[in-house]
């Protein structure tokens, strides 16, 4: 067992975990942050994407102990005081989610992308190639992110 100390959505957690515990399982089952979803556990579907020190990563491809000392943002950390972020509002307005299972991961990756400038629609679609959505056909997701990007 190993000690791990992480900041998740601004809150400090100190836990003792098995070294093999995935970050995704740590977030969901140890911390109860079930907004991060698990779709494939081999790094393709993108549903488990979180921000680690501001960068979008697959939480199913990291061990919890690798996040020691880092700051993590999950989808639960986006809305403040029950108010959705503009990106979340845009997803709602564009019907960019149906079942909602892939949405948290896509939101986190979109935040990373939007933090780097104003992506074009092509750049948005490129970023989304790292995420699987089986419901929407992606177009409304591109439209929602593009609206926030002003592109």
């Amino acid at each position: 067992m190993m000690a791990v100390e992480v900041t998740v959505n601004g809150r400090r957690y100190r836990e003792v975990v098995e070294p093999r515990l995935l970050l995704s399982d740590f977030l969901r089952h140890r911390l109860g942050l079930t907004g991060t979803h698990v779709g494939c556990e081999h790094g393709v579907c993108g549903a488990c994407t979180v921000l680690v020190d501001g960068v979008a990563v697959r939480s199913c491809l990291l061990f919890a102990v690798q996040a020691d000392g880092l700051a993590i943002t999950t989808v639960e950390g986006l809305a403040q005081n029950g108010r959705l972020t503009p990106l979340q509002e845009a997803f709602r307005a564009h019907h960019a989610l149906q079942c909602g299972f892939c949405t948290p991961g896509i939101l986190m990756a979109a935040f990373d992308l939007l933090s780097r400038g104003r992506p074009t629609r092509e750049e948005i679609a490129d970023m989304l190639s790292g995420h699987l959505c089986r419901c929407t056909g992606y177009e409304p997701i591109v439209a929602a992110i593009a609206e926030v990007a002003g592109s």
Partner: protein
Amino acid sequence: RFMDDLDPLPHAGHAAILRSQLGHARIVRLDPAPALAHPGVIGVLAGEDVVAMSRPFPAAAGSPHPYYAAAHLTARYAGEPLAVVVAKDRYIAEDALELIEVEYEPLPAVVEPEQGEVVSDRSFSYGDVEEAFASCDLVVRERFSFPRWTCCPLETYGVVADWDAVTGTLTAWANFQGPFTLHSVAAAALGLPGSRLRLITPPDSGGSFGIKAAVYVYIVLLGLASRKLGIPVRWTEDRLEHLAGSSASTARITDVEAAFTRQGELIGLRYDVIEDVGAYLRAPEPATLYRMHGSLTGAYRVRNVAARNRVVLTNRCPTALNRGFGGPQLYLALEGIMDIAARRLDLDPAELRRRNLVPSERFPYRTPTGALYDSGDYEACLDQALERARYEARRQEQRRARADGRLYGIGLACVVEPSISNMGYISLVETAQEREHSLPKSGNAEGATVSVSPLGGVTVRVGTTPQGQGHKTVCAQIVAEVLQIDPGEVEVVTELDTSTSAWTVASGNYSSRFSGVGAGAVYVAAQKVAAKVAAIRDHLGDQSLSLRRVAGIAHWHPDALPPGMEPGLYETAFCAAPNLAPPDEEDRVASSAAHGFIVDVAVVEVGRETGEVRVLDYVTVHDAGRLLNPLVAEGQIRGGFAHGAGAALFERLVYDEDGNLLTGTFMDYLCPTAPDLPPLSIEHRETPSPFTPLGAKGLGEGNTMSVPAALANAVADALGKDRVDIPFTPSRVWEAMQG
């Protein structure tokens, strides 16, 4: 909150499932002792226990291989459950799986449908098919092959099972999607009356598209584990398990023959179908084969049609519901043969279709196989699609492109999209004589409850187990309209609990039935509440009483109610689709209640050097009756398109000759991503259905049916061939170009 987010019971054990490594093998020995000795392991349920503790799952037709929730002695597909380990956590359970000693004796595997073991063989004939073929001017024939694929939702299966030994009741939470006929199938396997299998669905489900119907098998498997070990058990499937062992579409080989007159009138059709349902005939199969039976003639008015339907077993994962459910397979063959005929008759494919469409004045139209097409204007829909696609201009571009040596193709598909399935169509697998001895089945009904709390809060509860199709939005909208309140004031509860919800055997989310019967039941229940509210206002002589006030009176002051009125405001309604009789003596069946219509036009270019298929334009024009919510409707169309395009361009479950799955991860099974999907133009027409309460028809599956056919026709047109097999991965197309 999704299934794996729920923790309904404390101290549940975590299950992991040992699965067959081989496609077909005798299990000589399975020894769980080393796993049981592993620290943290609570117990093991082996296939032997499953066979001892349960009965085979019943299905619509007989099969030489009884189907249990886990295999004992013989494994028939790679991924078939052999044992369940329950441990303190999932990591330990997976460690212990590796400790179970299994000795296999490999057996020859069958993976090609043509070599499959036939478990059902039925022939049908309507009109005078022999005469049509004898008197026609042209016969065209081709063999079409639809591969196995899966709509694989992003959320995998999940079950929490809790056996109560005192009452002999199994309570299961599972992301099951219906049809709830399968609840009865699961209860029968467990030897329980339905009342002792309490099934509860979570508030949210991460997609399904039919695939999660087969969760019922795991409800039984985990239920038996709970029963044997005396503790609640939870299991969340992983992606590798999902691709290997959950469910899939059928693979279908269709030999189709079509008889035409010189003028291009289709006068006869013959199908010879081999349907691969995998290792077991698993309920509701062979429903994929019969779901479209009423629509074997598609959008065309041909009256003479015959079909031979063979259902075969192979050493591959059992099949079940998958978006489109028989439609993609049917239309690949029917629309493909129309294009071949157009080429032989030297007619434009759009013109050939126009000459054969069911005319608008013929609705409601009874097809020769028994469907009652409710409404439509097929020719107007075709015209609209051709105009939107700039069809004539595209044909000119094609001529120029071809002159430049480019491979440029245009493909059409005209597709009737049935929705709201008749629960009786599956009995066509039996002959009329055999059917006389069983309970006739028919119809499709749904229940809904609308209630108003003592403080005036409105709750609607539905049995349509949505997975993101916007049922909540539409239900709130319908109830709000009827009760004249704001949709934001309506709480919609979508968890179905078989012990407390108003449900039917037909409940669930499949055959695009929500907008017809699901929304219909909500509408009728809301009307019952509205009528009661109006009666109370009339009785008290005060039309200005608010809903909140009326609700308060109904709950707290029943003495003030009209004589004989029941207290409270809690109304349940069931809505049954009309015209869904059991199959008749001539094997005709109205397999669905409503029928939308779709015309798709696809324009593609194939890379001469690479075989890459680029979709330049894709137009779809829909007539799904009255649209309940345009945004939700467009979402369904785009999603159905994405699945159809995935099946046409990328997706295929590939097995090697020994029955090993070669596409067992998302690295190998290619779901389309955002840059992969072509642009889509959508237009609507609205011809209301006379047979549904709101005039709406289903629209969730139509493009999954039409897109493979339209793209296949476009690629064949580009290459100047009669047939190119889907999916159009560059290597396959390149090979077709060389052939």
